[in-house]
């Protein structure tokens, strides 16, 4: 590592602060685990107590993460609140957690959305709510673990284990075709990540060959020089694992199925939470570990992202099923996020992170609305809706708000992320920018058309007595709406904290790239040219 000139600088200068005396990151992971343990192990009578307990645990975790947010040092680009302990010393695996500006908001949005999902499913889970809530808490723990792990093996453990609660949530509480959906989800995602395991092992041994040290510590592994012949297969293995989970076109086909069959509140987490692990992993692992791969194949990845963006929007237009429509809109939005990541400039990356948070909120809100509609209509079919506005003006209002947020109306959260991504795309290549901006129009078309059909379209002749939102439901929808507004109006609190880490990441990628070019000046002039065309630029 020393020979390569301190590539761990990205993560150097881990600061310590007041509440960092506590192992706050471990608490974030293990509090939900403990909650789930209580839910599973105690033979509860009735449903209210376990539900309340789950909500309290999720709420406590949210408070904990807010405390973390307050104590977070926005000026530092390094890892904060670092916790490190030996785990399996025989193979050099450690229990190593840390948080920076990139993962901070991922954690926050997770701790925020889980109580929301619990609230929105309060009345809707009829069968065995105790288990349902337990699995939701386990899912939360797994997701937070993914965002905090700085040891590659630990990351892999969370990455895989997180799928199990997901599997149960869809498999036990899902729709009619849930068996097919769960199998597809598991085979796709685990198949992708198992190949990554082999690549992790190769990386581990390459690193050992270069430094004589067995370690999975990513801050050390960042300094590994990958031999050119191994670069493509290894990069591809990582890329595929993350692309499946993102999901990037053409690896997205599991999502609409999983999404359509998922329980309403579980689906909030699929759209938002599961998906952003993929995009996050691109930032945390693929870019810094394989900068050459990322840069030289960026044009192809960007192409896929743009195709996903357009394809998702076009297919979403044709959907009759509300859940599938939102799933394809997620495919489309994720394309935009990945575009932002692979244009390699500060605006793009910042926009991508902001966008990830924002999609969760906007699609999540939309989804909760669909859930409330489903509770009354027992249908997700758009043609069965129509004229909902007349029956439920309050729900209609919220639905409009979240639809507009998803479309990217200025003043709401999606706009900021999209705008930054467009900016970054234009700086990298005008063509990308134009194409991405064009998709905005398509997005508006399918979302607004969906809204029109649901709210104002001709309603079926059947008489229906749908109650408008209850107070609980109104509160559930109001909270994300407030956050969306806040993000749209005053994104500075978010950007301030993201920027140092994003800069640090891009700086690291560029530095490592320059080192490589110096090391192998003569290597592959053709890719060298491409690298030049893509020269990184920070603001």
């Amino acid at each position, binding site marked *: 590592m020393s020979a390569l000139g301190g590539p761990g600088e990205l993560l150097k200068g881990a600061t310590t602060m007041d509440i960092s005396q506590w192992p706050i990151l471990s608490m974030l992971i293990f509090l939900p685990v403990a909650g789930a343990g209580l839910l599973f192990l105690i033979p509860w009578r009735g449903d209210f107590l376990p539900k309340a307990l789950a909500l309290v645990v999720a709420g406590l975790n949210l408070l904990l993460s807010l405390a973390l947010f307050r104590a977070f040092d926005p000026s530092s680009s390094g890892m904060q609140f670092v916790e490190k302990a030996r785990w399996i010393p025989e193979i050099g695996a450690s229990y190593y957690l840390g948080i920076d500006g990139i993962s901070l908001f991922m954690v926050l949005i997770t701790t925020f959305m889980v109580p929301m999902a619990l609230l929105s499913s309060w009345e809707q889970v009829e069968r065995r709510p105790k288990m349902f809530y337990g699995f939701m808490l386990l899912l939360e723990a797994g997701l937070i673990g993914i965002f905090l792990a700085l040891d590659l093996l630990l990351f892999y453990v969370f990455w895989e284990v997180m799928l199990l609660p997901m599997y149960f949530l869809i*498999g036990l509480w899902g729709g009619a075709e849930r068996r097919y959906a769960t199998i597809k989800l598991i085979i796709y995602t685990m198949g992708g990540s198992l190949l990554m395991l082999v690549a992790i*092992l190769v990386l581990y041994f390459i690193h050992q060959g270069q430094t004589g040290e067995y370690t999975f510590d990513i801050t050390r592994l960042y300094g590994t020089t990958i031999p050119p012949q191994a670069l493509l297969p290894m990069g591809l293995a990582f890329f595929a694992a993350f692309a499946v989970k993102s999901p990037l076109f053409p690896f997205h086909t599991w999502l609409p199925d999983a999404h359509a069959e998922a329980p309403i509140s579980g689906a909030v987490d699929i759209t938002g939470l599961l998906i952003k692990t993929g995009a996050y992993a691109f930032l945390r692992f693929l870019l810094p570990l394989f900068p050459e791969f990322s840069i030289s194949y960026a044009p192809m990845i960007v192409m896929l992202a743009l195709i996903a963006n357009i394809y998702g929007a076009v297919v979403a237009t044709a959907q009759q099923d509300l859940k599938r429509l939102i799933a394809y809109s997620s495919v489309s939005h994720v394309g935009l996020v990945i575009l932002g990541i692979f244009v390699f400039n500060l605006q793009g990356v910042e926009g991508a992170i902001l966008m990830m948070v924002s999609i969760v909120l906007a699609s999540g809100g939309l989804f909760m609305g669909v859930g409330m509609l489903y509770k009354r209509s027992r249908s997700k079919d758009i043609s069965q809706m129509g004229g909902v506005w007349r029956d439920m003006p309050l729900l209609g209002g919220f639905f409009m708000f979240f639809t507009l947020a998803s479309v990217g109306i200025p003043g709401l959260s999606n706009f900021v992320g999209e705008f930054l991504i467009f900016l970054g795309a234009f700086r990298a290549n005008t063509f990308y920018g134009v194409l991405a901006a064009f998709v905005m129009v398509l997005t508006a078309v399918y979302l607004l058309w969906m809204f029109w059909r649901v709210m104002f379209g001709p309603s079926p002749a059947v008489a229906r007595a749908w109650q408008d939102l209850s107070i609980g439901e109104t509160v559930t929808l109001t909270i994300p709406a407030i956050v969306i507004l806040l993000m749209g109006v005053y994104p500075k609190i978010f950007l301030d904290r993201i920027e140092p880490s994003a800069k640090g990441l891009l700086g690291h990628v560029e530095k490592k790239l320059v080192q490589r070019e110096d090391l192998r000046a003569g290597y592959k002039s053709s890719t060298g040219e491409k690298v030049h065309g893509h020269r990184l630029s920070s603001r």
Partner: protein
Amino acid sequence: MDIAFPAVNLKGVLPQLVVTSFAVAGLLVDAFYRSTRMVFAISLLGLVLALLLFLSNWGKDGVYEGALLAVDNYTVFFNILFLLIAVATMLLSLHYIDLTGVDSGKYYPLILFATLGMMLLVSSMDLLLMFLSIELLSVSMYILVGSQRERWVSNEAAMKYLLMGAFASAFLLFGISLVFGATGSTSFIKIESALGGLAGGGPFLIHIGIAMMLVGLGFKIAMVPFHMWAPDVYDGAPTPITGFLSTGSKIAVFALILRLLMNPFSVPYSQWVVAFWVFAVLSMTLGNVAALLQRNVKRMLAYSSIAHAGYILIAVVAMDGRAMEAALLYMTVYAIMGLTAFGCIALLAKGEEERFSIEDYTGLAYNYPLQAVVLSVCLLSLAGIPLTAGFIGKFYLFSAAVKSGFIGLAVIGVLNSAISLYYYLGLMLRMYAMPTVAVEGMGHPLVGKLAVALLGILILVLGIYPSPLLGVIKEAVAALPAI
């Protein structure tokens, strides 16, 4: 061929003698008193005593020279493992065999004899002792498999196993005689020194001999293409015995194969790597694909056990220090998983009838919460999901393969793991699905439940904190001659 009476160090074989005498004592007690409980107690006592003796042997210097038996950390490790497997099998059988019409007076002593066969097998330093141990193990197993005399599947399984096993033994014996012909000795040490000086891995004869032996041994570990017997036998045997057969017997032969390849056949081995590569890939792939199609849980686990033999063969291909550690680790982990899986199935039986069909498992979790949780943990472990012992085992195997440069093999291994998720997780989810018909609950003995609960906890503990076991395995491997 001169067979001098070897100067056996009686202290070295004391545990084996203990197991033998307690097994005989058990048979005698059965003959004169017909007290099942007493036979059980005597057999268990013998196993525990032998276990204690072995524990005191741990960490001492190896004894080989001029002896038939090796007593070093490697063999002690496996002996302890076999004894533990036998204890677990006995605890899981306790109630089950009374229900299913097995003559328990012979059953427990036979488990002891089979265990003795495994113990001698892994310790043997001579081809003849090796053959005798395999026969002891196999004959005991033939009887155990057929011990449910009322059920015709059990009889069919025993007959099939016996016929095929005898055939395999013939191959093994023929291989041994060829090796003897080529090297002039049956002692591992002498064979090695005879082969060591020869260029090109020895004469052609030795390769034919190894091939024949491989057929015989490959049959015992149910390696594709010698696996045909396994599904029928595993399906027909009493379930605790299926667990015993799929873990103990398989591991014993694997431990022997590793020793053979390390020690006497290290020179010709280099020309067998490709063959083992092919066997590994075939076993993994065929096992997993066939398991996908099964509707019978025991047959599904039988095919999955073939696949797991394929995973262990990855270590045989890679064959260096790390691979040896991986092999030992995986065998230990597999022993726990196999016992747990079949133990849970035995404890999910309703009365005299077992639940074979996958449909019978729908919604079982609500009547048998403990068994369902443990079986789920075990299935996750078999699938290699992190935080279970199975993941650590697979991780070690794949890392050994990658380290030795067999990246293709590691990729095939992980793809197979992905396939296996389908049937393992499918069964798991089924147990938690809403039951379509009412499932009648039924009590099961506390001992068995405690045993599987303990095994399940062990799977999780080893998955989260494997370091102590890894340390022990490192010492065990260090006892073998360096590669």
